[in-house]
């Protein structure tokens, strides 16, 4: 038994032995970004062709986890860049004092809203949306208010704002539209909520299995089904009140030893070498300059007439209170 164990341990070490070191840029991000089918590997190749350096991706489970990793490591972090947190976390990230101003030109940045943050640079964005199964629902909710007040027998699966980014997105969306009346809106909406899942995967899995005809996801979700599965069965409902935005960003750490290289990467990030890989690998809208045309599927997506976004500081200051309000309203 002991011999087997020693053997296995040796094999385990061999599997994860670090690659030989070279002048390199280390970027922390969430794991789906650098999966084989994500944009990470392609971006690595593209950037390394321009920089004569090595790009090392370090993946932590999800966006929140990457920021926590930075907090746990403090100023001793080996990360040069953190890539993947969204605007609901940027104020919290800035408050750690671990990030420094990016200091690059952002003329390539292209967003539906004005970008003023001097610490973080956006690389993609998406709008939250209710995705519905067109084979089960003939008349989808025509507005957020319609969703809140609609037939309780027609169910939606949402995510928990305490554990998931889209869940927090819906919380902020309802806050942005209903303001002080958000609690009442949640009480009404909760009649239609089949269940609240800890993450996006559970909710979307239940939706595609047919357990509920609606799910909270992104306006870009139908693009995946059109491109990869050639079906337009799953569609986004367009809401005239506007759709809440998620903007994903990257920032440089104060403790970085490679700041010049890091700035070079952020500048590269806003251009085609990076941006071309975003639409069909990360399934989000590019937030910079692309050289390839977007796939046709993206033309067919819902384009919100209005983008909603609460300021990062406001979110950071009120998140706990708003989550409590949600808890009270939905457990009544």
């Amino acid at each position, binding site marked *: *038994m*002991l011999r*087997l*164990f020693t053997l*296995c*341990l040796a*094999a*385990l*070490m061999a*599997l*994860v032995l*670090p690659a030989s070191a070279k002048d390199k840029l280390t970027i922390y991000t969430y*794991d*789906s970004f*650098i*999966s*084989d*089918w*994500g944009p990470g590997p392609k971006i690595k190749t593209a950037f390394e062709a321009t920089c004569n350096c090595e790009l090392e*991706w*370090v*993946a*932590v*489970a999800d966006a*929140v*986890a990457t*920021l*926590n*990793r930075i*907090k*746990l*490591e403090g100023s001793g972090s080996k990360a040069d860049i953190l890539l993947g947190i969204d605007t609901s976390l940027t104020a919290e990230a800035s408050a750690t004092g671990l990030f420094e101003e990016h200091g690059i030109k952002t003329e390539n940045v292209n967003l539906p809203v004005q970008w003023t943050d001097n610490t973080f640079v956006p690389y993609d964005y998406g709008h939250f949306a209710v995705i519905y199964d067109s084979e089960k629902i003939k008349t989808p909710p025509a507005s957020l208010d319609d969703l809140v007040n609609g037939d309780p027998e027609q*169910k939606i699966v949402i995510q928990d704002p*305490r*554990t998931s980014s889209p869940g927090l997105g819906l919380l902020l969306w309802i806050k942005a539209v209903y303001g002080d009346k958000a609690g009442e809106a949640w009480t009404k909406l*909760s009649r239609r*909520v*089949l*269940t*609240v*899942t*800890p*993450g*996006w*995967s*559970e909710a*979307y*899995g*239940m939706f*595609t*299995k*047919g*357990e*509920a005809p609606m799910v909270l996801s992104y306006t870009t979700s139908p693009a*995946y089904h059109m491109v*990869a599965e050639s079906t337009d069965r799953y569609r986004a409902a367009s809401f005239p009140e506007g759709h809440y935005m998620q903007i994903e960003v990257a920032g440089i750490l104060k403790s970085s030893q490679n700041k010049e290289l890091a700035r070079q990467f952020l500048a590269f990030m806003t251009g085609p070498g990076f941006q071309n890989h975003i639409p069909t690998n990360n*399934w989000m809208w590019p937030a910079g300059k692309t050289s390839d045309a977007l796939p046709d599927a993206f033309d067919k997506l819902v384009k919100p007439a209005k983008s909603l976004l609460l300021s990062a500081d406001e979110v950071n200051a009120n998140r706990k209170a708003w989550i409590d309000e949600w*808890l009270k309203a*939905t*457990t009544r």
Partner: protein
Amino acid sequence: MQTSRTLRPKPAVLAGLVALGSIGLAVATPMLALIAIAPAMPTLSADYLGFVWSITKFTVLQAGLSTLLSVLAAIPLARALARQASFPGRHIILRLLALPLALPALVVVLGIIEVWGRQGWVSTALQGTGLTGPLNIYGLTGILIAHVFFNMALAARLLVAALEQIPPENWRLAAQLSFTSRHVFRHIEWPVIRSVLPGIASLVFMLCIASFAVVLVLGGGPKATTLEVAIYQSLRFDFDPPRAVLLAALQLALCAGLFVLGGRMATDIAVMSSVGKQARRPDRFASRRMDTLVIAAGLTFIALPMLAIVLSGVTAPFTVIVSQSVFWRALATSLVLALTAASLSLTMAWSLLAAQRTVMRRRAPSRAASAFMSCMQASGSLILVVPPVVIGAGWFVVLHRTGLANSAAPVIVAIVNALMALPFALRILRPAVVGQAQVHDRLCASLGLSGLQRWRLIDLPVLARSFALAFAFAAALSIGDLGAAALFGSADFVTLPLLLLQKMGSYRSVEAAGIALLLAGFCLGLIWLAEQLKVETQSQ
């Protein structure tokens, strides 16, 4: 001679102490590390304490009910399976019982929804008869269905293992005395069941306390919030490590308290090991019809969600999956991790039990010896209720400060997995080891057999079956584990369940279903392998 023996601990006791110490270290280190990095202790408002009180009540309620139902359902199923030793497909059924452990909760939850959900098979069938509308399981019902699915299988498998330890002499006696089924239960089966039941129930209770995805998804909403959810939230989203540690300590204390209560009800091990061949039970004919019914019912309940998982997996593009190099890397990592963790877990379990056996051999164990023994029994279990997020974050802090974060991570993952499998291994091995000791201790003493020689000649052949089962459970648990593996996530350290989750998280649910099926297949393969080892040692 006598005095020197009491003063100087034997090697077996030392090994046990080392195992005990490493468990304490593995659990306490991360918790202390997380408290150490906090600038201040958390302030706990009256509101927050009220919230904690209400979720604690819900946590105990759902875990208590889940345990009760799982164990109550497992007893008749285990009796039927133990009685019908030549039931068609019994071997496969027994292997299937260990399988739910190996499947990530997310996969099982989707399987259960496919069977019991609003649009599920049962719902559709019921609606077809026109009797009811769609089922709505979201709430306590859903949580209980899923927990009974996971744990009835586990409890039944452990009970069968215990019942199979009943020596053939007892059955010969029962046949001579023309025992009825009721007599058999009262005089032969119940003493055995009663001796292992507290251990099994406490294991199930802890698994239900620590359950996370099942509770949130099937609980239907924030009403079903458990301590585990609050710990996850306070560490992950609020980044309040000391609060997370406090909540984790509360969860630990809760379980430890219940164990102390449960410990009072525990009886001595009633199992006697026998070298003899498996007995053909005299009562196997009389109850055949009833047993068939019970097995069929239990099997249906367990097999339906598994069938759902298989059906959604078989249509997966397997050629695409196996053509990706990441799949093979994940498979290799998972298999190596499972084998490492299982062997380490068994080594630790054996150290603890051998130490216990040595201590018990004394006529009147001292107070210190008794304390050591109860400490050991509890220690082997409590790691299950320390949330993986706490262990992971805490160990990360320690490793990062010492600059070992990358190289040591896989080792820590293997150790944490081994520790998580330890409660299973202990519960499987303990009855066999203790029973075996009662039979063979004098023989070994008179032959002068000890140490490795005794292990090779006496212990191993007799305990091979229990070792194989413990190994299978430990391997299944670690091949399916996400908690520990997700802690140190990096591009180079991908396990099969992690890959599955990544696929689920990027719309590739069809590929994920295929991977789930392969994962189940590899797990069955490991269980089969463990059984082969058993056969080999027994034939020697």
